[in-house]
């Protein structure tokens, strides 16, 4: 009896291949059943996210070839197209791999939280498909435990690791709750858009967009339920803005220290957070020296992201320790149970065939 995982992820395959092999949420349950029945597997589970497709099976013999053929037929794609991208792990290696995946150690952004939820959903789907048996059930329970342990006992999830999340975190540290804060966006480029989406998700309600081409400001404003204004009118909005995101293509700075100094009494010295995403920069660096004014440019933000990422990487050793010990426990359980899933899962029909 073997535990096998076969899969592709963002490290081994480009998105063109991953999307061909991926399963949508509503077809996973059917696919689980069809996979089990086609290859007469003891247990199986499909995990499909935008960065990975993995198939966990418990089978009597080596069924990797069968799974490849199943995928090829189901997805109408030649085996040769994806075969080289596949990784296959067995037994202890498969256990450790799953532990790593669920804890976010195998993710594009190391330590990200989303993957654990996706693994849980895959587990629930498989449970609903009735393609789980004693081994995979126990394996996934232990996976959730190990992931939780890694999350609470190491610093792997600490610190923001994207420019957007770093910015939101900084905004909150400067301004407190963002719900009643006003954001002024100067320049309707795409760089600021992701950040804007993130700010909105974190409660920002009032957004004003200024752009040289007014129509572009309108388009962006429309998408975020914001107000568009003429470019020349933006200084007026600086008075009551709390967060200013600038990403114009201007060849020189458009906001200067003197302007902001004059602005502060009108703002009643309320704190002001400037985010300069433009290259060349839009905002004079000296602005950061004014009391209650904070200026971060794209390099500052990127540097914080890199620092946080390297902090997470430093935690990998302690994560691996937890994984090794959890994997060892699981192996001991397998031995103790002298695991023979076939007998345990023996249904009347299978019995007759034997």
């Amino acid at each position, binding site marked *: 009896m073997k535990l096998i995982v076969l899969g592709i992820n963002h490290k081994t395959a480009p998105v063109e291949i991953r999307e061909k092999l991926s399963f949508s949420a509503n077809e996973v349950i059917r696919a689980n059943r069809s996979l089990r029945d086609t290859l007469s597997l003891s247990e199986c589970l499909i995990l499909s996210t935008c960065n990975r497709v993995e198939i966990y099976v418990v089978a009597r013999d080596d069924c990797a070839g069968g799974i490849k053929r199943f995928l090829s037929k189901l997805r109408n794609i030649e085996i040769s197209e994806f075969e080289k991208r596949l990784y296959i792990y067995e037994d202890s290696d498969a256990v450790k791999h799953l532990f790593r995946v669920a804890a976010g150690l195998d993710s594009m952004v190391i330590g990200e939280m989303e993957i654990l939820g996706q693994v849980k959903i895959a587990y629930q789907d498989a449970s609903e498909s009735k393609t789980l048996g004693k081994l995979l059930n126990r394996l996934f329970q232990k996976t959730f435990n190990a992931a939780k342990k890694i999350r609470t006992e190491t610093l792997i999830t*600490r*610190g923001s690791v994207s420019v957007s999340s*770093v910015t939101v975190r*900084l905004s*909150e*540290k*400067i*301004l*407190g709750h963002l719900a009643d804060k006003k954001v002024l966006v100067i320049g309707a480029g795409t760089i600021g858009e992701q950040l804007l989406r993130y700010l909105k998700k974190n409660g920002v309600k009032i957004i004003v967009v200024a752009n040289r081409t007014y129509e572009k400001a309108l388009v962006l404003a429309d998408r975020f339920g914001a107000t568009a204004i003429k470019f020349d009118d933006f200084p007026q909005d600086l008075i009551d803005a709390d967060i200013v995101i600038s990403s114009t293509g201007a060849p020189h700075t458009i906001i200067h220290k003197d302007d902001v100094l004059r602005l502060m*009494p009108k703002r*009643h*010295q*309320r*704190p002001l957070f400037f985010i300069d995403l433009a290259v060349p920069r839009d905002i004079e660096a000296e602005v*950061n020296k004014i*009391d*209650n004014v*904070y200026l*971060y440019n794209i390099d*500052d933000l990127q*540097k*914080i992201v890199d*620092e946080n990422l390297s902090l997470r990487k430093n935690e990998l050793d302690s994560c691996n320790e937890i994984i090794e010990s959890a994997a060892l426990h699981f192996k001991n359980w397998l031995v103790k149970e002298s695991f023979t899933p076939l007998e345990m899962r023996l249904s009347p029909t299978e019995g007759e065939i034997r």
Partner: protein
Amino acid sequence: MCVNPSIDFILGCKSTYFLLHIIAIHISYLAFFSAFLSALLYLIQDNNLKNKKLNSMFSRLPDLSVLDRWNYISIGLGFPVLTLSIVGGLLWLKGIAGIYWVWNTRVIYSLVLWLLYAIILHVRLSAKMRGRKVAYLSILAFFIIVFSFFSACSSR
């Protein structure tokens, strides 16, 4: 505490005004200590943000807005209580000495303190100053409290 058990002092201690003065001054010092603490944390956090040092200290310290509010509320509570304490002290002085005013260090310190906190509240309320500068003033004022404590002890 610097207790000097002179006859006057013991007599004075029985006065309600004296009691008011002593209780109020301790409450106000507590409030000003709280203002001092929040100001100190504000300066540390502000420094982290200005210099882009987002270490674990940065994560653990509260938001600037919280620290600023904490400082404002502390002084807002401490100032009226300090005023009460000074009024109590002057009335007590009148009771034992028959005058409202003597030029001793303790009285002068109280006056300076009262003025300083009045200024802090004024600039804060009128939005002339905020953040770092208010934090510096809160720290300075608290140092004067500590100073006045020692000088009061040594002058007795």
